[in-house]
């Protein structure tokens, strides 16, 4: 039961206000909110209580989506909804920033109008919204010039609102039928001070991009579904086939969507190693970080980066590497971009940190955050077996890809 939604720019300016119920929420709440957000900084929670309202906030790409309510309600519903609003707007407007929202505020109002009425969310399916309100893309601009019809609102109501597959628009037609399945995985790992891998797991998503005519019925199977620890599905996935045979049976939405997300726990190793060594005495700290391949995944590991925050007690730092570039940013973040690991040498970062005058040794140890990307491999080991269509259209193209990147991959020193 949301009462009002505000969109704030990154300077706290109210860009848009949408009142949802008879209880009008005064704009001054945004000033209160902004003061709080400045004074609390990092510890500003997404769900807070103001003197008059309870506030939900979601920040995406610098835009704050702020919703107010005065009644008890499921907090996740408020937050999920704001996230969906952000996603839909970003999809419609091709990204989110202050200018694009100000230039298209009429569309934003129209969208909000269809997404929520009287404080209760209606539909947030991009497919359906797109049928009601055309996105302001170049194609429709060109069309409007050609046809002279400048309205961005379709004259027909979406057929799907009444259909039993609410995520799919009424029968699209394609000359070339294509469906692409991507496995995108993120590896979260924690390696502790003693070099022990304390936690390593994969969060993965199966992303599908489908351009298929009619009402296609797809079945996707994995070679090794048993490794999955927990799965979440797009509403289009039928539950029973998964439960009995671990088959993903579904009628896909048109276009891109997230078919499934999953988690694989307790992985035993990481593709690369990072070995930081910090030894300090007499007001200086020597740093030595080694990076190398630990378990060759069979494909190139690229975009390897290493970042760490220099402790506040450090006066100056002199760090060099034998491969890649090292930068120390203004906020004392040291960033080392390695790229690929060369065949002939192991990349290393060495140097000294000078501590504050009265300090003998370093007591606060930085955490190294590692980034990498491996194309063509799903590190969890999950493999797609096959993708079947019930009625195969002519000229069907199926494509599969995999990608693993580092999520929250941290190495403590």
């Amino acid at each position, binding site marked *: 039961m949301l009462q009002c939604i505000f969109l704030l720019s990154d300077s706290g300016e109210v860009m848009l206000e949408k009142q949802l119920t008879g209880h009008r929420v005064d704009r001054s709440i945004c000033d209160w909110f902004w003061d709080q957000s400045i004074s609390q900084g990092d510890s500003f929670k997404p*769900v807070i209580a103001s003197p008059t309202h309870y506030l939900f906030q979601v920040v995406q790409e610098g835009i704050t989506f702020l919703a107010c309510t005065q009644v008890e309600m499921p907090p996740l519903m408020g937050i999920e909804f704001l996230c969906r609003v952000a996603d839909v707007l970003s999809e419609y407007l091709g990204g989110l920033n202050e200018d694009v929202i100000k230039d298209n505020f009429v569309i934003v109002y129209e969208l909000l109008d269809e997404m929520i009425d009287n404080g209760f969310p209606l539909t*947030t399916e991009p497919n359906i919204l797109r049928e*009601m309100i055309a996105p302001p893309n170049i194609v429709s601009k060109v069309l409007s010039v050609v046809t002279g019809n400048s309205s961005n609102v379709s004259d027909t109501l979406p057929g799907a609102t009444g259909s039993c597959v609410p995520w799919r628009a009424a029968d699209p037609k394609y000359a070339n039928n294509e469906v692409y399945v991507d496995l995108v995985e993120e590896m979260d790992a924690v390696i502790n001070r003693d070099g022990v891998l304390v936690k390593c797991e994969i969060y993965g998503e199966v992303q599908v991009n489908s351009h298929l005519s009619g009402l296609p019925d797809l079945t996707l199977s994995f070679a090794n579904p048993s490794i999955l620890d927990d799965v979440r599905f797009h509403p289009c996935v039928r539950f029973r086939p998964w439960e009995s045979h671990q088959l993903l049976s579904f009628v896909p939405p048109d276009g891109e969507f997230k078919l499934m997300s999953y988690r694989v726990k307790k992985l035993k190793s990481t593709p690369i190693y990072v070995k930081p060594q910090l030894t300090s005495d007499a007001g200086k700290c020597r740093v030595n970080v080694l990076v190398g391949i630990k378990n060759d995944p069979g494909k190139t590991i690229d975009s390897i980066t290493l970042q760490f925050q220099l402790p506040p007690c450090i006066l100056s730092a002199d760090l060099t590497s034998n491969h890649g570039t090292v930068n120390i940013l203004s906020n004392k973040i040291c960033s080392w971009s390695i790229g690929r690991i060369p065949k002939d040498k192991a990349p290393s970062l060495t140097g000294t940190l000078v501590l504050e005058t009265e300090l003998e040794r370093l007591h606060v140890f930085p955490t190294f955050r590692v980034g990498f990307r491996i194309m063509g491999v799903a590190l969890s080991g999950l493999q797609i077996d096959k993708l079947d269509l019930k009625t195969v259209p002519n000229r069907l193209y199926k494509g599969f890809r995999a990608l693993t990147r580092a999520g929250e991959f941290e190495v403590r020193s």
Partner: protein
Amino acid sequence: MAPPAQSQRSPSRPQPSGKSEVSDLKLQLRQLAGSRAPGVDDSKRELFKKVISYMTIGIDVSSLFGEMVMCSATSDIVLKKMCYLYVGNYAKVNPDLALLTINFLQRDCHDEDPMIRGLALRSLCSLRVANLVEYLVGPLGSGLKDSNSYVRMVAVIGVLKLYHISASTCVDADFPSILKHLMLNDSDTQVVANCLSALQEIWSAEASTSEEATRERETLISKPVIYYLLNRIKEFNEWAQCLVLELVTKYVPSDSSEIFDIMNLLEDRLQHANGAVVLATIKVFLHLTLSMTDVHQQVYERIKAPLLTLVSSGSPEQSYAVLSHLHLLVMRAPYIFSSDYKHFYCQYNEPSYVKRLKLEMLTAVANDSNTYEIVTELCEYAANVDIPIARESIRAVGKIALQQYDVNAIVDRLLQFLEMEKDYVTAEALVLVKDLLRKYPQWSHDCIAVVGNISSKNVQEPKAKAALLWMLGEYSQDMQDAPYILESLVENWDEEHSAEVRLHLLTAVMKCFFKRPPETQNALGAALAAGIADFHQDVHDRALFYYRILQYNVSVAERVVNPPKQAVSVFADTQSSEIKDRIFDEFNSLSVVYQKPSYMFTDKEHRGPFEFSDELGNLSIGGELADDVVSAQRVEENDKDLLLTTSEKEETRGSSSNDSAYTAPYDSSSASVFASQTQIESAISNPTAAGHSPQASLAIDDLLGLGIPSVPAAPSPQLKLNTKAALDPSTFQHKWRQLPVALSQEFLLSPQGVAALTAPQALLRHMQSHSIHCIASGGQSPNFKFFFFAQKAEESSNYLVECIINTSTAKAQIKVKADDQSTSQAFSTLFQSALSKFGIP
């Protein structure tokens, strides 16, 4: 609208300085109004856009109302939408002008395009002008019968909007029963969902005045309706699913096979991509199985994985909301999550509020098998860049140490902290070592050796200093140079700014003196002299007290200062289990995020009409009646298992009374509780004649007693109370209404009592030990309100007490009602003596 204070911030955009632009727009709009020239729509659109953009940045463009309406005769749907938006925004402040719009909106309601029909109807209902409601009924009525589901969906919400403008018009037009028919028969699930949300609101609001509405509201959670909705749940969109699931939590299945049917039907919802649906499903599962302990536990096992996945996916905001719920469950049933402790490891760049929740969970799930890993992990955080988190982690290590019986490894770790030479680490560790020693005196030897090496100069924080002083005093026997450290501290008396530390210093010197008199005598003399000269009242008083007691009798002084101490077995928990249970009842709501039950934060006026559960919140006292009766029973059973207690509570609730929060939320008795509650309130607000004078002497006694057991010579209680008194809330309500006020008094509380009364629950337990039971409580510092009852032993004569305590003025007001009026004075004395002992250990 607020003045556009922010408008200067974006100089890139020309901002209207004020009236001239608006009047310029007005002129242009006027020119376009009558025009039928080709391309006029495009120029109108530009103008409308400008108007709306001014409105958006907060400039008052309401003066254009007339012109906007004139221009609204158009077939362009974007223009229409902008116009609707404008009209919706300003109609409320311009009710007269709003009349102008009615005409074109009504016309649009009959447009052949369903989209325009819907939009017009939505705008029409959003005008929210009371004197225009007569124009709403017609379009709404035809909207509800429209062939297009989009229009019906809009019309249903329109009915709700109408209800909020004018409830009587809505009810007179018989809209609620049309909605009910639609809900049960419409083919479109969005229409059904909208009907459901509208009817919930309307009938909850009506329920207070109309019997029929109460009945209707109950039919919403009757078996046929619930099953009808459940069977179609997959057709609903995700948000509507949340709504249905919320309704299902209020449904009380008749037997366990029904429970399993519902759970089987909903199991796949746990795999839904929308976190809100998952959480709503979890709530249904938890509530359905409350009375089935073993199944309840299986539910925990089942929901674990989806919850953990939700935490690790999605935006940080989403994971925070999920994590708050996970936190609640972990705190209730830590052992179920003990193998998943790695999920609660903190990541470097998580916000600190997330880390804090995780630290608490790590502390809770620690058990014999995982303590080593958890403590190792926590110790790494102690070297964290984020100092508050580093502190919290050390505290967490300490808490784990206090939970576990095998503290061997932990003590070593804590002692390593002491050697880290980082001031805040040392400070936290000192406090912990002190607590640890109070619980495990057997470790004193190892600890004291390390503590002795700490230079008191490196300890600056008052809490840590106090802890160090406590150890110096307590273990002066084992620390070679304790007297000398104390002596040097006494010499620097004036530099010590914290009164707490000075108090501890005094006591430590005293303790040390009794153990090693020759070495400490000088320091003691100096300390007492400095203490008596101290400007801080407490320090002065304590020094004087020590001085006099030493003068009076040294051995008595030793017994006072250095009595043999027993190891502390359990440290007081900060949040009572009653509150935790209460929050659990409100799973999937804001309560969980705030870690407070909703009655502590939601504003009363905003609860009633919106949600059923909110309405219960309104009855905060009424709702708690049941809780507290049960809590009384629970304490007797002394059961620490939260999972079990809840289910027991559920059973007791079910059997003892029907007005519990969710066994029967629609039970009409809850409404009657509410009604009677208001009567109680009004009865109480009548100032009763009984004077306050008899209490004056008591209050003075209390003051003079300086808080030292100042129990006003508890009259050898001729009046004996039944320790296991039981009274169900409805009887209480009934009696309270019937009986006259026998006694009304006001008196002062002891300072310790005030200090201890941070939450109502603290007092409840205390009073219970005096055979006075609480039936309802509420409020927040400084104002608390309690209803107590007691029964005479061997006789079913009841005493009912209303007690209002204001901790800022330390005043307590009581009103006593009794079956047997003649003993009410005796009871009151008993009550006061019990109350005055509160907070005094």
